[in-house]
């Protein structure tokens, strides 16, 4: 009978843990490989031009990513613009002004916003946002409410919902960045007789630029990857062009919308290629965002998607 030494147990334990790391990484690689294999027919058929073929036309077996890239970038742009402006100022407010109990109540409420499932956001958007946009715009459109516009569905509705979904991320990450900005520098400004506003501009903001940038990238990643809520309100029309009020599709919303039905093989491959493109873009944004954020907190703001 040989005795297993403590050293042996330690080595075994470390080995098991390392295996877990490998399993997780392996699962990721498998996922990526699966996406590539499943999109192979489409990659072979269209090559790199898949990225700029401006149409998605199952009748002519013509599939391109451009309409969805257009929709994704525009909606994510609207979302990050909204969430950036409102979220960053809110983060400043929650750290600089107001009484403490109000600050903590508001922070808590904003965290709840991060935890609400996207399908519930979808219900809310259908109940509230789409009707509001419809009411505001149908007058201007006059009689010309065509198949592609009107009734509130479209790019703007998608962007607004995404903006609300992205905002908790921006608030949480920016707040964390402000909290870790050096206090003594801010006090130096106040001791010189700076007002709150001057203190923030002079001695707080210079230290949180990276954090804000990071939060916006994380927001972009989430906005790109969000499928469910957007697909319910964007109108699901693959078009490159068409304004804010036009119906459109994003990469993710297209996947949610189409994959729940039965589709022909080449189209399936093209859909998987859309997924591949989506993954690459989202991973780049997510990685970029994380790289800007040095200190982390346990916060819902850091959860992706």
């Amino acid at each position: 009978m040989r005795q297993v030494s403590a050293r042996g147990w330690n080595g075994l334990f470390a080995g098991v843990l390392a295996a877990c790391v490998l399993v997780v990484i392996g699962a990721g690689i498998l996922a990526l490989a699966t996406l590539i294999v499943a999109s192979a027919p489409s990659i072979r058929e269209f090559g790199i031009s898949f990225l700029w073929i401006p149409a998605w036309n199952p009748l002519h077996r013509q599939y391109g990513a451009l309409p969805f890239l257009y929709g994704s970038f525009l909606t994510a742009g609207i979302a990050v613009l909204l969430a950036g402006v409102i979220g960053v100022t809110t983060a400043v407010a929650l750290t600089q002004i107001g009484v403490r109990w109000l600050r903590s109540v508001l922070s808590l409420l904003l965290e709840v916003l991060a935890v609400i499932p996207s399908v519930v956001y979808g219900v809310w958007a259908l109940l509230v946002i789409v009707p509001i946009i419809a009411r505001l715009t149908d007058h201007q459109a006059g009689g010309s409410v065509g198949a592609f516009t009107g009734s509130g569905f479209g790019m703007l509705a998608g962007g607004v919902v995404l903006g609300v979904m992205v905002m908790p991320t921006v608030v949480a990450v920016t707040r964390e960045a402000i909290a870790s900005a050096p206090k003594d520098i801010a006090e130096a400004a106040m001791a010189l007789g700076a007002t709150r506003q001057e203190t923030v501009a002079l001695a707080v903001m210079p230290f949180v630029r990276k954090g804000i940038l990071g939060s916006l990238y994380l927001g972009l990643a989430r906005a790109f990857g969000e499928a469910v809520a957007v697909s319910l309100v964007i109108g699901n029309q693959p078009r490159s062009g068409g304004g804010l009020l036009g119906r459109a599709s994003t990469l993710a919303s297209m996947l949610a919308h189409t994959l729940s039905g039965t589709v022909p093989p080449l189209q399936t491959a093209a859909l998987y290629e859309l997924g591949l493109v989506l993954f690459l873009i989202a991973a780049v944004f997510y990685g970029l965002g994380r790289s800007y954020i040095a200190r982390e907190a346990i916060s819902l703001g850091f959860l992706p998607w």
Partner: protein
Amino acid sequence: MTRVSYKTGRKLKNALFVSILSLMTSLAVLPLLSLLWSIGVQGVAALVGLFGAPLSRGAASAVLASALVQSLITAAASVAIAMPLGVAAAIYSSQYAGLRAGRTIRFIMDILSGLPSILSGMVVFVLLSGVSSMLAGVLALVLYMLPVVVRMADQVLVAVPVAYIEGSLALGASRIQTIFAVVLPTAGKNLVTALLFVVARMVGETAPLLVILDGGATFQGKAGFQPLPLRLYSALAQGGSVSHQIVYAEALILLAIIVAVYGLARWVGRSDR
């Protein structure tokens, strides 16, 4: 040195600053209030409508109960797989991996966390060659939760002061003993909070299940497995608008469950004061 009076302009600017901040903060919480209000009102009305009428009561409660149970089973199964695996990987990256290796693992996890949830469903769909089952749904959830669990757990474990760990090792404790006696208990509360956050997100997640279960089940008429979020989505996507009472009821129930899990996470993670 002469004094320049400049007071009024600065005061105005500061007042403007404060008002803009207040306005923006109100704008930020407005969506939440609107969401809670609209879904709360409609949801309660729907529940009253469904359960008030004897005819619909049985059917409604059967549908809701089965969706609820399926949701919870799916979530529980995914948690049971993803948590141990993810936390184990995080223990490795935070306690065993060197500086370089740790950074590499974190970087890879960051990239993998960028995997949008809808894609994990698509991947599992291909891997299981279209078999739609609860297992596929669970795997899809696990696939996209894993890197996130690793990352969240890692950042909690890394925060355990090195001095504690070195203190324990200096007393002659082995690495395993140190991990179970020092690292995990110290990180315990924060770890549970972080994991509960993940659970809260997992319960309401729709997208990974969408491809597998919706494509496989609803449209082929064998609506055997339909967790709550998925039922909601199918109803909305098919109707194009919110027309059924049951949709509001489901949305409200889902919301309530998730806010409850979130509240639990916050309660566990509260600072003792």
